[in-house]
């Protein structure tokens, strides 16, 4: 599978620091077209306004959580095929199961490293 590094990626987190870290790591991996959203509802609006090849989202945000965002994405005809990676400090079995049942493509537990981020992105959109 050939990966288009010019694809749009949406990163979603209510911590600005985390958005900045993920953006910088994505830039190191060659992805420059990265947009940010501060919670699920902000992300959903952006997803409906522009086409994204990948969503990387935190879970614990207000007013709309990452899990709620994932469910909204999966039930939206136009968005449901969007690859979705959850990146979160929620690391209980129940969380992983709930995310998987909601249709998550992969799950990264915080704190994470650059290699894990790369591996998980590759597992979802293909090696690059």
């Amino acid at each position: 599978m050939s990966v288009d590094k010019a694809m749009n990626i949406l990163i979603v987190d209510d911590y600005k620091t985390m958005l900045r870290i993920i953006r910088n790591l994505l830039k190191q991996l060659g992805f420059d077209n990265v947009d940010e959203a501060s919670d699920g509802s902000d992300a959903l609006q952006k997803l409906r306004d522009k086409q994204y090849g990948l969503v990387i989202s935190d879970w614990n945000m207000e007013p709309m959580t990452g899990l709620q965002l994932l469910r909204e994405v999966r039930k939206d005809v136009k968005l449901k095929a969007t690859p979705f990676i959850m990146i979160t400090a929620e690391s209980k079995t129940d969380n992983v199961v709930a995310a998987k049942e909601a249709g998550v493509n992969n799950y990264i537990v915080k704190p994470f490293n650059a290699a894990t981020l790369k591996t998980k992105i590759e597992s979802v959109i293909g090696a690059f």
Partner: protein
Amino acid sequence: MTAGASPESVSRAPDNSAAKISRQEIREVVESVASTLHGDITPADLKVIHELESLVRYIHTAKREIAALCPDDIREKHIREATDELDAIVAHTEDATGAILDAAEKIEAIANSLEVDPAIKLAEEVTRIYEACNFQDITGQRIGKIVTALKNIEARIESLTAALGGAAAVPSSSGAPKTPKTAKSDGDLLCGPQLPANAKNQDEIDALLKSFD
């Protein structure tokens, strides 16, 4: 029975000293009263009454001790100070992390202008800095959990004080812990970072995800 009264009879009433009641009548009255007592208050009842008296004494003691603790001070001073300090820690770590990231981004930009080998080495170290800055998010969430716990304690103190007739009967909307936003199951899932001993690591999560395939 009055001292000096005849063993055979006693005065029926002060205003009628002539009227006498017999020993048999007294016996019947005493037996009647005694049988009533025996019927209503069993040894088990007495034990319950004793326990209730102990409980009342315990509650009075607890009220005195809680009053001595100055619950208003705990709520208005100590917990507020603690949450303010924790909020300040979050703000300071966010500022510091921002400064670290500023520097890392500048180093990364400089590295791009160098020859390939040193540039790669510098970029690797910058990546380590980015990874390390994860701490700000995790510590922020951990501190958030502590603030929520403190607010929970604050709310409990208010309830206890109100229940015991204290002055702090007005519930604090800001002090109440957040309730789950949607369905119970979703709210229950939001637990924040776990302590290392309780947390699943990435390998365990990967294995769990694989089990769905």
